[in-house]
């Protein structure tokens, strides 16, 4: 049925007309307080997703104008320049230039600027003004600038740039009302600031601009800005999901490049210099320095924390505190969860009739999920530490200190941050490699990151240590020592393979690093907590869905088909089941490592995630969940025998198994992330092959040597 025009027309107008709520993009240098401002502006109304093809977080939030109208705000990754050198910066550039089909090109841009470092921050602003969109410049951290002796005149800056300038202290929620007011304005001014393109470059800019307008459907102003960019970075960093340039534009670009190379003109230096000259003139006008710049508080702290002796002592203390917290503090909440889940299992066991359904619930569902949820506290502690190190600014100092040891294996300090994060979980670790500009260095870091012992290995280590060492006679220090040994083996492995890869597969010039050390800041607990909750939720969602599913499947495979003799021992039943048969097929491969088919079943199921090994062992060895779970599994494992009556879990086998988990690639989520990050199946497959291959070889050597020595 056709609607009468007086109903349909206003509806159309509302969507397409000037009434449509504007989309804002928030951009700024790293460490300018952009995320704090974004959170303050949008509160909890955020949607976190991914840019398809790249594992870069896409955060879209909703803010309300002074009149209560919703406005979309896209939080773009931090960047120093639109001339992208890393995937993060490439996403920023592509969204602003409208090169991504998956993200709307923003109507207006909020440039967040660290006021205490105005010149450097204005470089990006300067590039963004070229885009000709309405821009709001937010002078964040005004308090820090004033303390440092820089008095900035926002009015003067506003006059010179011709755009709205808002002084702000996002941490103290100052200036937010003014920002909202500016965002609500319908008549936000366009940049009046005109910057003359240096004469030698002008013809090339005009040429490319014309081509971009004609062949790449850009608007003239965006085309001019993009032409300037293309002449500095030659489109060197491209990420998945970005629309490629037309062949005509590429041709023109190549011909100009060739011409300049012949003449020996350094066009990119000329462009950057002329921008900085314009910025310096501007700053001379806008900033009044009240005193000569002396060493700041951060400088004084740095004198100790990056000192060649005290710096390392402090770094060691931080690392020690991190591991101490994971191993000891986490015990209390862990036991609490364990007790309650066990009680639940006991209650179900007691209140249901004997049968398959009861078995499924107790052995499949509750035991399986419990094995995972108990180590939520450790994950939370790790993320708390990583968040703390990042938000105080210490993480960059740790990277600075680690630069020297990292250079021995051919990487630089920035690679240390992903590796440290990988102690918590390889996934955020691998995502943190985005700040490494060199593609080869980034790939090497991604390849070795999963060797750092992540928190998912903890339950396996803990179970094996419990099986290996009797709890009463062996001191706790020995157990902690054994655990640290595993961490050390993994870390050495990561460094060793990085060294090997940098000398073979990824031969390249020594890496070059420039890294900003942000001023020290008070840790922002709400942000850390928020991140911890996000991570915990992701983890629990996993435990509640996929791991639950695997536990049920595993229970099914180890229960069916039923042994023809109903009075068969649980051992015989497992051997007869599908899981047992699969394990037996695998046995010849893993027997040289001292593993039998039941361990084989655990290895296969824990390919999804390492922690599944523990729940698998619980299911396979038919542990009744009456008392303390780890102890129950431990006792079951200790009494497990080979068919000839020999003990299965000898100390040597326990040790070998731990080492197996140090090296083997047993994590589907990591495989998926590496696939997305590297945009091909080649690297995740290579990673599985080299890691699991190494695990087998190392375990073979350990087990056979151990046997020969009589262990």
């Amino acid at each position: 049925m056709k609607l009468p025009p007086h109903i349909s027309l206003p509806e159309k107008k509302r969507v397409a007309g000037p009434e449509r709520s504007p989309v804002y993009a928030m951009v700024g240098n790293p460490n300018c307080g952009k995320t704090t401002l974004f959170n303050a502006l949008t509160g909890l109304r955020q949607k976190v997703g991914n840019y398809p093809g790249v594992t870069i977080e896409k955060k879209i939030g909703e803010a309300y104008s002074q009149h209560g109208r919703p406005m979309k705000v896209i939080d773009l990754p931090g960047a120093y320049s639109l001339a992208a050198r890393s995937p993060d910066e490439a996403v920023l550039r592509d969204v602003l230039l409208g090169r991504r089909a998956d993200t709307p090109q923003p109507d207006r841009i909020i440039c967040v600027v660290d006021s205490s470092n105005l010149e450097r921050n204005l470089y990006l602003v300067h590039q963004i003004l070229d885009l000709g969109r309405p821009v709001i410049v937010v002078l964040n951290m005004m308090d820090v600038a004033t303390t440092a002796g820089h008095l900035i005149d926002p009015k003067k800056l506003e006059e010179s740039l011709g755009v709205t300038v808002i002084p702000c202290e996002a941490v103290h929620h100052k200036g937010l009302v003014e920002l909202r007011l500016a965002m609500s304005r319908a008549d936000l001014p366009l940049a009046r600031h005109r910057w003359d393109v240096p004469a030698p470059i002008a013809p090339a800019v005009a040429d490319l601009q014309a081509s971009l307008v004609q062949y790449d459907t850009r608007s003239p102003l965006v085309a001019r800005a993009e032409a300037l960019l293309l002449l500095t970075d030659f489109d060197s960093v491209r990420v998945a999901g970005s629309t490629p340039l037309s062949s005509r534009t590429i041709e023109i670009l190549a011909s100009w490049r060739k011409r300049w190379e012949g003449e020996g003109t350094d066009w990119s230096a000329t462009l950057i210099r002329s921008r900085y000259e314009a910025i310096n003139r501007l700053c001379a006008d806008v900033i009044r320095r009240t005193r000569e710049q002396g060493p700041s508080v951060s400088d004084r702290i740095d004198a100790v924390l990056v000192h060649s002796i005290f710096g390392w002592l402090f770094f060691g203390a931080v690392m020690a505190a991190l591991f101490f917290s994971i191993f000891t503090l986490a015990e209390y909440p862990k036991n609490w969860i364990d007790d309650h889940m066990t009680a639940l299992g006991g209650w179900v066991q007691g209140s249901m009739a004997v049968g398959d359904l009861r078995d499924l619930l107790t052995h499949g569902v509750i035991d399986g999920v419990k094995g995972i949820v108990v180590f939520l506290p450790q994950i939370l502690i790790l993320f708390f530490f990583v968040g703390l190190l990042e938000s105080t600014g210490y993480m960059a100092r740790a990277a600075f200190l680690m630069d020297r040891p990292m250079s021995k294996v051919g990487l630089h300090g920035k690679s240390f941050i992903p590796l440290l994060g990988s102690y918590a979980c390889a996934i955020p670790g691998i995502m943190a490699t985005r700040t490494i500009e060199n593609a080869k260095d980034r790939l090497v870091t991604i390849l070795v990151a999963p060797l750092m012992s992540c928190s998912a290995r903890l339950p396996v280590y803990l179970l094996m240590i419990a099986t290996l060492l009797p709890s009463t006679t062996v001191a706790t220090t020995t157990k902690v020592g054994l655990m640290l040994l595993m961490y050390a083996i993994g870390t050495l492995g990561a460094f060793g393979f990085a060294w090997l890869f940098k000398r073979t597969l990824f031969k390249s010039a020594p890496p070059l690093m420039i890294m900003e050390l942000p001023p020290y800041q008070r840790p922002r607990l709400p942000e850390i907590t928020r991140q911890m909750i996000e991570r915990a939720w992701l983890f629990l969602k996993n435990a509640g869905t996929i791991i639950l599913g695997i536990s049920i499947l595993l229970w099914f495979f180890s229960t069916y088909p039923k042994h023809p003799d109903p009075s068969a021992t649980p051992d015989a039943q497992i051997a007869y089941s599908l899981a047992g048969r699969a394990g037996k097929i695998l046995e010849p491969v893993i027997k040289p490592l001292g593993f039998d088919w039941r361990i084989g079943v655990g290895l296969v199921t824990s390919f999804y995630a390492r922690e599944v090994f523990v729940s698998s062992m619980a299911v396979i060895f038919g542990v009744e969940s009456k008392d303390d779970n780890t102890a129950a599994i431990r006792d079951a494992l200790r009494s497990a025998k080979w068919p000839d009556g020999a003990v299965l879990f000898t100390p040597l086998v326990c040790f070998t198994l731990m080492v197996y988990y140090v090296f083997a690639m047993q994590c589907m989520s990591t495989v998926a992330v590496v696939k997305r990050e590297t945009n091909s199946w080649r690297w995740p497959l290579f990673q599985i092959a080299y890691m699991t291959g190494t695990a087998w070889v190392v375990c073979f050597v350990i087990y056979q040597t151990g046997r020969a020595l009589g262990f």
Partner: protein
Amino acid sequence: MSRPPFNARMPLCQLAAGATARICEITGDESFVQRLREMGFGEAALVTKISGSKTSLCHVNGTRLALNHDAAMSVLVELLPLGAR
């Protein structure tokens, strides 16, 4: 101002801690050089070395920047006499 008595060029990594120098020339990998300049580490900028021999920690334009050894090797600086800043 008369020329400083000692204006030999040296790589940034050899600059003593606490000394201030002017950046004369940046060589090496094209895109890395570009990023250095974009971060304010360009020719004619004044740089104060804070610490470090292998990895250099510097102050440029109000920012603390860390450069690894190879990066610091590619930046040639000219020492300024004390108090010239």
